[in-house]
């Protein structure tokens, strides 16, 4: 397939004199398992924000499935199959887990704007949401309010909501961030069992996770791409070791 699932061409973003993204040419293939790594302040989350439309670029283009979406606002890009999770949980804290996912599914199905039919009678939206929770193993928390859950479980809900959107491209922003070690393995397994057709881009600091999941890695430093390659190539690259204080463990 000549079209990438996600592509950026010459993406740049500056705030006055401060350049946070510089000529980023990036390509994510369909079904990819791709990781974006880099030291703090490298601009990884900024990149995600530029891709999703939360931030508009100073220059450059964003393409989704070959189509230019640079001018589209966030919500419209979601409709075209782009979903993301946030570095810090961004959920409907006062609503139940089931409802959180149901809202996403309702939007995807285009029934979320209906004014008069009761939500409960929505054609299977609630059932589909429950099934999604079952697949992630959090169905038992279905009617608990999100704010009552431990942080690690909330992280899983965050992923469930993103998957509920049935995306073609999934951006996971530090999915294991803030999750205690014991629970993070569940997150890793969840990501590993994501459907193969989804193109997944993970931003992570946890090298262990990166090497377990990623088939390709891009290294971002100070807003521009330093190097891109397979995990072995990246692990062996001396420039990457230089950029990090420690050395990444090879898988």
């Amino acid at each position: 397939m000549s079209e990438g699932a996600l592509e950026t061409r010459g993406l740049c973003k500056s705030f006055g004199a401060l350049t946070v993204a510089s000529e980023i040419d990036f390509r994510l293939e369909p079904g990819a398992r791709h990781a974006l790594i880099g030291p703090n302040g490298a601009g990884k989350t900024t990149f995600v924000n530029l891709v999703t439309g939360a931030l508009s670029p100073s220059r450059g283009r964003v393409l989704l499935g070959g189509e230019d979406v640079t001018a589209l606002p966030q919500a419209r890009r979601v409709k075209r199959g782009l979903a993301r999770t946030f570095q810090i949980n961004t959920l409907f804290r006062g609503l139940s887990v089931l409802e959180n996912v149901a809202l996403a599914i309702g939007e995807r199905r285009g029934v979320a704007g209906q004014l008069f039919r009761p939500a409960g009678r929505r054609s299977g939206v609630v059932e589909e949401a429950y099934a999604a929770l079952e697949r992630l193993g959090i169905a038992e928390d279905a009617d608990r309010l999100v704010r009552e859950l431990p942080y690690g479980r909330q992280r899983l809900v965050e992923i469930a909501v993103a998957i509920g959107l049935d995306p073609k491209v999934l951006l996971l922003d530090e999915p294991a961030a803030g999750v205690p070690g014991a629970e993070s393995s569940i997150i890793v397994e969840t990501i590993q069992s994501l459907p193969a057709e989804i193109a997944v881009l993970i931003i992570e600091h946890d090298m262990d996770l990166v090497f377990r999941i990623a088939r390709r890695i891009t290294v971002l430093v100070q807003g521009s791409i330093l190097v891109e390659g397979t995990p072995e190539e990246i692990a062996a690259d001396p420039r990457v070791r230089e950029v990090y204080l420690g050395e990444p463990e090879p898988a």
Partner: protein
Amino acid sequence: MTTLAEAPATPSAIAALSRRHRLRLSEALPWVIALACFFAFPEYLALGTQILISILFALSLDLILGYGGIVTLGQAAFFGVGAYTAGILAVHGWTEPLSGLVAAGAVAAALGAVTGLILLRTEGLTLLMLTLVVAEMIREGANKAGQWTGGADGLQGVSIAPILGLFRFDIYRRTSYLYALVVLFLAWLVVRAIVHSPFGRSLTGIRESVTRMHAIGSPVLRRLVTAYAIAAALSGVAGALLAQTEQFVSLEVLSFGRSGVVVIMLILGGAGRLYGAFVGVPLYMLAQDQLAEQFPIYWSTGIGLLLIAVALGARGGVLDLWDGALARMRRR
């Protein structure tokens, strides 16, 4: 033999969400009480009508504030526009009340849609300010447009024809009360349906996290403007009811005081619960009727302290306290 808990029935979570909209017996309570009051307190129907009208006003606010999370200090703009629309129509010969209501609602809705499109792009203090400013602008406009609105003296000579040609407005306010009650009932049906609909649920989503709503592809502005326009329409209908039952409209209907008090009444009852208006408004207005004239200083201070307590306690008003009491009772 599988027990009930193991039977392959719908999981309780799905059932709960699917059946949330079903009518419960307790929901008949407000209407029973309202009808009972009609027969039990025939001398107080004027106050009763005012209370019903304010409940409608607060109900409309609940849609945008309680469910949508939009803090507005300018909802009186729509109330007042509705009141003046109905009043001006009547003064110029259009005395049929039901169509007057519809016209008022339509004008208020239009105003809501236009201002919503402009204002709801902003947030926080800016949005709060703009709701205030728009309401003040309209009040100034009404003040100056004396030939239409009667200016500071108010709009007089609002005469209303009998409803459906049958029910004349009488001095005992019997017709007024039942008129307001029926309109409130219909409005309640509408708001209740909206609140339980996917649209209504997405409003709660917007209230809980706008960022998340954008990230699930929701057209946030469109939803908010729609809700704002509907709320405006209902506020306008409430205002029109006031004009028609009082047969007089003063500038007070557009005042910051009216915008502020309706927010207070709703919060005291409990916002975002559909019934907060039904609890908060009667409590506030009855207390005000009894206390405010005799002890104005204590009344103001009391309300002030109550507001501070609610804000500090972050309680959801009386309904929240009621829920808490019920939960404690159940645990025994």
